[in-house]
């Protein structure tokens, strides 16, 4: 039994009645509830047992990398695209072309082609910011509508964002500014923004949680995270910046050397279906699904009304470009006095 599971699973065909249903080790990097409904949904749809472990994207990447020589997970579902691209670059994930591809938005496919088919887009979410309306009023500030507004002197000490060195969200912000305003203009913007930042948090969604609790006025985050705060009952208003903005592509990859490769591919195809992606409506997930037939929550920010830049995931997802931009941010921006 064990050696079958351990063996080169490409050739491991499910044998015997006990094994017919199979099982799947799912590494899930989205929020807990979403992970739960995905795992249970797949079990209901196929009868395959799912062992789901939920971790943040970075933690999942670290685990997949540490387990490289003896993989324990089969599919890595969810979480922002950069770690998936990084894993693809390092050969930690398996190329796979799903028959479901013709149902997907072009951005989901382009994520796959830029990674040599080792990953694929499952949802996307635009970058933006949210503010705490109570605090804004208490401080007598006008509501910001554009990226440029955040650098106004009256917002000094009111803006919070994550540290791009530790958070994929903040790195997306940096890369967005570089693409929106050009490299010099982007860094100039980051420097002016730096003067208003009250804290660079470690985790990407922390700024909007702080805004929800009234610990900062404005937090720069993915807009779906800001909407989740509002839905949870906090006085948070979500803003799509007027200049346009970048976005993330939440991704899915099959782990190279997965022990349950057949089940992994089954999950992969299922997770791209409209039916599976509609499960997001049951939990508070406000991203845009990658299947064109799937529904988007009515509370989610409407991507068609947001000016999205043509984000170059291949270039800005590569580790060389990332290292260069982060080093430049470290030396030119983070060392400035505030």
């Amino acid at each position: 039994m064990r050696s079958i599971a351990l063996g080169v699973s490409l050739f491991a065909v499910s044998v015997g009645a006990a094994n017919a249903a199979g099982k799947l080790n799912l590494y899930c990097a989205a929020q807990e509830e979403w992970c739960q409904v995905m795992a249970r949904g797949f079990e209901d749809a196929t009868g395959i047992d799912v062992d789901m472990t939920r971790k943040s994207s970075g933690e999942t990447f670290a685990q997949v990398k540490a387990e490289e020589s003896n993989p324990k997970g089969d599919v890595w579902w969810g979480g922002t695209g950069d770690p998936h691209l990084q894993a693809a670059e390092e050969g930690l994930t398996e190329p796979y072309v799903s028959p479901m591809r013709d149902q997907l938005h072009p951005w989901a496919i382009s994520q796959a082609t830029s990674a040599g088919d080792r990953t694929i887009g499952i949802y996307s979410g635009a970058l933006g910011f949210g503010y705490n309306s109570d605090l804004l009023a208490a401080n007598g500030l006008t509501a910001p509508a554009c990226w440029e507004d955040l650098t106004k002197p009256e917002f000094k000490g009111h803006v919070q964002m994550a540290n791009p060195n530790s958070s994929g969200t903040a790195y997306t912000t940096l890369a967005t500014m570089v693409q929106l305003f050009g490299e010099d203009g982007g860094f100039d913007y980051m420097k002016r923004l730096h003067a208003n930042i009250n804290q660079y948090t470690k985790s990407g969604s922390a700024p909007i949680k702080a805004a929800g609790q009234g610990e900062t006025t404005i937090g720069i985050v993915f807009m779906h995270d800001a909407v989740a705060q509002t839905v949870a009952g906090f006085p948070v208003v979500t803003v799509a910046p007027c200049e346009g903005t970048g976005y993330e592509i939440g991704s899915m990859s099959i782990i190279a050397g997965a022990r349950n490769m057949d089940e992994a591919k089954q999950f992969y195809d299922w997770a791209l279906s409209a039916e599976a992606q509609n499960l997001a409506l049951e939990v508070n997930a406000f991203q845009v699904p990658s299947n064109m037939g799937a529904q988007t929550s009515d509370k989610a920010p409407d991507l068609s009304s947001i000016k999205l830049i043509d984000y170059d995931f291949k270039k800005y997802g590569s580790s060389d470009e990332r290292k260069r931009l982060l080093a430049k941010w470290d030396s030119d921006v983070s060392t400035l006095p505030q």
Partner: protein
Amino acid sequence: MRAITSEKTTHPVLIFWIVAGWVGFVLLPWYGVEEFWFLEWLTDGWPTDSDYAPGAFLLGQGEKPWLWPLVPALLAPLLVLQRRKTDPVFAYVLLAAGGFGFAWLVAQGLGIGIRGWTADWLAALFGPLEDRQYGMGYGALIVASAFLFLFTQGIAARGAINGDVFVTGAIGGVIAVVTIFVFFPIAKMLAAAFITEEGGYSIPLFFAKFFDNRIWGLGCLSGTRCGVAWNSLFLAVLVGVLTTLLGLVFALVLTRSGFRFKRELRAITVLPIITPPFVIGLAIILLFGLSGAVTTWVADLIGIRPTRWVYGLPGILIAQLLAFTPIAFLVLIGVVEGVSPSMEEAAQTLRATRWQTFRTVSLPLMRPGLANAFLLGFIESMADFGNPLVLGGNYDVLSTEIFFAIVGAQYDQGRAAILSMVLLGFTLAAFYLQRFWLGKKSYTTVTGKGDAGVHPQMPRGLAIPVYVIAALWGTFTLIIYGMILYGSMVQLWGVDNTLTFKHYITAFAVRFEEGGIRWVGSAWDSFWTTMMISTVAAPLTAAVGLITAYLLTRQDFAGKRSFEFGTMLSFAIPGTVIGVSYILAFNVPPIEITGTGLILVISFIFRNMPVGVRAGIASMSQLDRSLDESSLTLGANSWQTFRRVILPLLRPAILAALVYSFVRAMTAISAVIFLVSARYDMATSYIIGRVENNDYGLAIAYSTTLIFVMLAAVGLLQLLVGRTQIGRRLAHEQGGS
């Protein structure tokens, strides 16, 4: 008496380990079996199916030929059963058989993995290998232990440590497990510091990264920011000193005052230790944050805008003082209680005032406690991860930097390894400083001679500030916990303050149906796993810790100092590093235990063992060696002495170790994040998931439940372990106060 044992020709211990070795080799599955304890393997093809076959059957079927050299090593000890212990052949055979067998097991385990040879040079040397092997199972484990203890019996027979089989075995065992579960994974992790991006090794790169300005910069002296190393160091020293002082204050109130509600005070002081991470941080934000109750109240009072003052050093300091004072207290209470009243009474008889007595007698005798408490506070602060994450603001510290070097956008394990080395360097320095300060003085006061005194009360000049500080800190702790309890029962903390029990119901609902109780709450799975793992880990942790402490204080052997530091190592390293290093080391054969509950138990044992060691050392250095000696002279061997004399006198240390390891197993987070799996999810990792999902109410309700469960557990442990009876009078009224 010793002379008699060494003339005997029956060696019960030797026979035991020889039998164990053969049982492991002939009966138990050699390789790892999933769900071993369900014993399904017994009916599923054992003993011939190669997945479940014992080593002997594998060889009999012509498989795994590299196990053949183990057979002579198992046979050899049988030849010396009839010989005397003093016979040189006895010792040599055991040394050779045990040493060779153990070394061969390690070598074949490291050399042959799931893809055949694990290194290219092995394939070049021996030619290609078509076979492979998985992680070792119980069979291999028991055979390895047998070899190890045969080897230590050989050492004992050569006359080391007075030929004491128990002590040599204990030293060998502890060294082996610490090497396997501390040194090996950490070395594997730290090696990343020298690896370049291309995969080669580079020393200059290491130095370039090591002397990075982000680590050692002194910008804070000139208006910008300082490097993380200085931040961490400053914070850790501050926390070490202040927790020691606060711990001492509480220990003094409990032992040297007429305070009436000692029991309640004791409960309050240990409360923070049983609090899951993030909860204290959240409570502090609710009190002192920008929109916090206290901040807005004070700002209104003096007419200024509320500020984010708490984020940064002040916030981390408050949270860490709350969290780590109990540890200092637990170490100090044992020591402060242990200082013999006869000494203090002698001083008073010699007409010393209370103040003189305290300053020149009591306080110096408490030095081992103070030093160990400081060391623990320092190290805990260095390795703490949750509080800086929540309250750190822009005050970066090593532990969070390490975490985000691994899981952050940079994916830079090398940087994590280098930062860990800096952290280890500081810990090492603190450790040696502590040794230097303690010096070679004797702190022995429990001598077994008449010792029926009562501790004198504190001098008045000291008592007043001590009372004030204890009262203030106690009240503060109570307020924080009041906030937490309240937070678990409101709809949405800070926004909608309607009282509700819904969070508890979501987490812990049960339904009574025919056929029993159904645990429908969403938290039950992780709750039971956590309970089970903590319950298994706690006694093992205490045992390993106290045996180590005993060896360190009572026995002399070569390499004792580095051994002592080695036992502190896993504690000093942040959990994140431990977590990742455990995956790196234990996801592949020979020891393949990722995804099991075992890896959680083991990580807890070796992470929390140092507290047992420290508490044990602090208490044991107070016990006079003449106690051991008289026991030995009366014919007991060292195991009996340890069991009957030392152990009962160590009850406070045992309790501290048990409580601490149980509680830490329930509240640890940073190492656990990497080690939990679908089947073994822990409470803390569940709570973090909830916090990330904005379910603060549920997270806090779960934490509150855990607090009560742990309170009950601590009470139960206190009952089970009991108090040390040193034969002192109990009440002060009868004493000379």
